[in-house]
């Protein structure tokens, strides 16, 4: 692909060359089954375990807590369904609390267990107008039956950081039971130092392709020994927590992406934060532009705005004509821009949300690209505002 300006890292980040090279060895010829006992198997197992070490270090957990999965959605699903299934068999009632602004990977898994089991109830905690989880409301929802609380580290649409330490202390302060905490750290992983920011959380979900790794790679990382059922049992892999042969190439790719992010974290944050500032101030001059969650702390990569009176569909169409890849933040499997449940939870009207635009940057973006983007955006917005 040539002549594109790629600003949709939050949808999928460019695959890093180092990732592709590291995976190549495990994508042709004999690749042993890591569960086997001969030398090909041992070699494969070694690559998997080295990858596990790297992912563990990335999150700041023990290698034994890393469960390789086929992506962020599976990780979140395993966290929720796995914990709920184990809990509901040993307890009369099982309650799950998730925030209203979770990715559908979490929301749909929660809705599924709520639908399927009579003794499982899901409660939803709201956010304020800045898109930050309401800890007072969370406090009111926690009971002795709470089995799991899931709050994302960073919202994938707005880029707003969530108070994970507050979530942890709120949950722990009022109940003495074994409630487990989970965070979807998919949007946070390219930007935050996870050992610190997720230190208080028991389970962390990661996704490979949002950090420059391969699609179909991810991990659920357990910081402590959480009791959970495998969602796909069979074969006993990953200590019985996820059946199926571990994809060596995917694990290696994920680990390589983690290593690169970790090494470049400070530099990337500093540079992209400058671009974020520049973009935000340039956009603020465009007609009808409103910055979403102006007062919240965000990751540097995301700029989310709404344009009054305009439709995302049309903005995206004209930007696409100019080779600009951005998104309206939420899209359904049909590919159409959807009214966002995140913006709705923040109290933003449907009318305003219709004109939303998410620009998401990554380490690859340059200042020249940002300048080009600003020029094209101005042209498109002025044209549609005529």
């Amino acid at each position: 692909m040539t002549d594109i300006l790629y600003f949709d890292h939050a949808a999928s980040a460019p695959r890093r060359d180092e990732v592709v090279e590291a995976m190549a060895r495990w994508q042709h010829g004999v690749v042993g089954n890591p569960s086997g006992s001969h030398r090909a198997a041992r070699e494969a197992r070694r690559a998997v375990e080295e990858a596990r070490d790297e992912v563990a270090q990335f999150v700041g957990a023990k290698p034994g807590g890393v469960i390789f999965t086929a992506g962020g959605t599976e990780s979140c699903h395993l966290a929720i369904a796995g914990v709920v299934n184990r809990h509901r068999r040993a307890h009369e009632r099982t309650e799950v609390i998730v925030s209203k602004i979770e990715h559908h990977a979490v929301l749909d898994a929660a809705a599924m267990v709520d639908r399927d089991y009579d003794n499982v109830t899901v409660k939803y905690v709201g956010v304020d107008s800045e898109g930050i989880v309401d800890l007072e409301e969370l406090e009111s929802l926690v009971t002795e039956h709470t089995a799991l609380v899931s709050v994302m580290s960073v919202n994938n649409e707005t880029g707003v950081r969530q108070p994970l330490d507050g979530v942890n202390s709120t949950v722990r302060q009022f109940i003495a039971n074994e409630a487990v905490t989970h965070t979807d750290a998919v949007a946070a992983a390219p930007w935050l130092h996870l050992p610190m920011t997720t230190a208080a959380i028991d389970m962390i979900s990661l996704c490979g392709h949002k950090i420059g790794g391969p699609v179909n790679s991810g991990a659920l990382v357990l910081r402590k020994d959480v009791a959970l059922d495998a969602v796909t049992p069979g074969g006993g892999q990953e200590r019985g927590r996820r059946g199926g042969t571990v994809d060596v190439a995917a694990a290696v790719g994920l680990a390589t992406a983690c290593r690169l992010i970790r090494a470049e974290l400070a530099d990337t944050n500093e540079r992209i934060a400058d671009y974020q500032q520049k973009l935000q101030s340039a956009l603020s001059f465009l007609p009808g532009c409103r910055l979403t969650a102006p007062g919240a702390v965000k990751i540097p990569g995301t700029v989310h705005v709404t344009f009054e009176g305009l439709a995302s569909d049309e903005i995206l169409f004209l930007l696409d004509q100019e080779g600009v890849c951005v998104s309206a933040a939420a899209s359904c499997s049909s590919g159409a821009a959807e009214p966002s449940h995140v913006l709705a939870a923040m109290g933003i009207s449907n009318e305003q949300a219709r004109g939303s635009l998410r620009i998401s940057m990554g380490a690859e973006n340059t200042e020249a690209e940002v300048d080009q983007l600003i020029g094209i955006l101005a042209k498109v917005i002025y044209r549609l505002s005529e």
Partner: protein
Amino acid sequence: MSGGVDSSVAAGLLIEQGHEVVGATLKLWGGVSDSGCCSVADVDDARRVAQMLGIDHHVFNYTEEFERHVVAPFVAGHAAGTSPNPCIECNRHIKFDLLFERAARLGFDAVATGHHAQVLERDGQHYLVRGADDQKDQSYVLGYLAEDQLATLLLPIGHMNKSEVRVHAERLGLRTWDKPDSQDVCFIEASKGREVFLRSRIKVTPAKIVDRATGEVVGETSAAELMTVGQRRGVLPGRDGEKRFVAKVDLAAQTVEVGRLEDVLISTIALDDVSLTFAHETLGEGTEVLAQWSAHGIPKKATLHAEPHWHLKLAEQARPVAVGQTVVFYRLNEPEIVEGAALVAAQ
């Protein structure tokens, strides 16, 4: 583009004619439909066709507008005892209103669809004309289009028979896209039907079925909203063995009156003034037209009158027409040409 053969061939032909073409699929219904949640399967088909034709494809989300302009009025209409045609409302408000506006804003010169109808240009005026394929003609559902819309509308397959369209599909390498024509209302699941859908939105009215000829109660219905004036299907013959037709649906009284054909025939159709759309200025008091009030109905000779309210005087008596249906007027001496359209009003 729906992924069906008509819109696919329409796009393919325009590309061959040298136009710069972009495919668009409208996401209209957010709920469950026969093609899966939010019609994902249809969108996938359309996207695949666009890929095969080598053109860009975009999905435009009009679910809110569809709910507002099509589904809500459909439900409200039934609740009020009328029978609106959702496909016509969708064409009018979504496809040929919002999409046309959007296309102009985005810099397009024309909008094309795979409808079986044609646009004729004569002396600087544009006329909507029936499609060449009698069986497939869709001019009825496009009857509300006005001159300015017709001027920027392309209907690349309107002059073809369906079999010719399929030949083109095969030639263009689109022969796998032989989806059956869609017949039903897209937001109603065929397996569940209108009643299930309406019950999910409104409280339906059980009613007694009364025979006008004898005054007897001859049956009952669980949902009077589903009975359409003029309908015979599902209505039992009378004691005399003659067919019965729905003559009147009275939700307040919870009765549906049925009658023999001669008891229910009408000779005028009241029109809703506000909805009356003239494609041209050739319609007026006393104009003789051919009026058609269902998608594949037989056009009937009638005269248009403006006083006291717009109405049609039929040359011959006809089965009653439900309030909320659309009547399309075709030119008497050139019966292929659409002159205008209007909604049927209460008498």
